[in-house]
């Protein structure tokens, strides 16, 4: 494995900005593709990042998505200023959502986001303080035997 400096970057996310939803994740996806990361890993990171981005847009006032890419892994940390999650176990249950009706009409808020993020991540850490915000940290390892 080459020893190279990690590649890092950060995106600002605005709560309620549905028009630009997915812009951060798309850019991260394109960065990983350009770096030659195998497509299976790119796909998993992109899905997890997009769902995390949507959670900020749906629930929070604002947030950031910070990524670190090394030859061995991709780490994404999404921090928001939002309402926080009261019951994380409940939030992790497929089908549970606190999204408002108008968001559900758009096809979001099905309670699939967090479980899907977890499914695509090798490491998944969710910390939240009600009334302050939420931090989601995921890591996806790049293994040499990953299929392209």
């Amino acid at each position, binding site marked *: 494995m080459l020893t190279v400096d990690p590649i890092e970057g950060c995106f600002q996310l605005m709560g309620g900005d549905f028009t630009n939803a997915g812009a951060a994740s798309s850019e991260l996806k394109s960065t990983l593709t350009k770096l030659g990361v195998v497509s299976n890993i790119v*796909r998993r990171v992109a899905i997890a990042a997009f769902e995390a981005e949507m959670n900020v847009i749906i629930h929070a006032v604002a947030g950031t998505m910070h990524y670190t890419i090394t030859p061995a892994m991709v780490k994404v940390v999404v921090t928001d200023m939002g309402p926080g999650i009261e019951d994380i176990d409940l939030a992790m249950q497929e089908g549970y959502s606190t999204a408002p009706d108008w968001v559900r009409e758009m096809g979001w808020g099905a309670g699939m986001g967090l479980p899907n993020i977890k499914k695509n991540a090798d490491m998944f850490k969710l910390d939240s303080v009600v009334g302050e915000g939420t931090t989601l940290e995921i890591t996806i390892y790049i293994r040499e035997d990953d299929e392209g």
Partner: protein
Amino acid sequence: MKVNDIAEKIGLAVTVAGDLQKKVTDCYISDLLSDVMAHSKEGALWVTLQTHPNTVAVAVIKGISGIVITNGRQPEPETIKKAEAEQVTIMTSPQTTFEIAGQVYQILRKS
């Protein structure tokens, strides 16, 4: 089977022509965006009633070969703008999702 071929066979109207030569390898039907995020496969044609711009973002992230909007619905102007920028194909049809699904199933099964 390419996006173009399917559009011609079923009579889909192409609203935004992304890569019409892209291969359609599967099809997924859903109006829940997270469901598409979780379960659609790369190269799939996505049949939906949703018309808002987030559909384009989902299509980009998932490598969707084309979006088909059914029941005579039309994509929102912002959706068209995003799709043009991202080169995502959007097609429409007056037919129902069921009718489109049946035809796509027949076509993909034979190809």
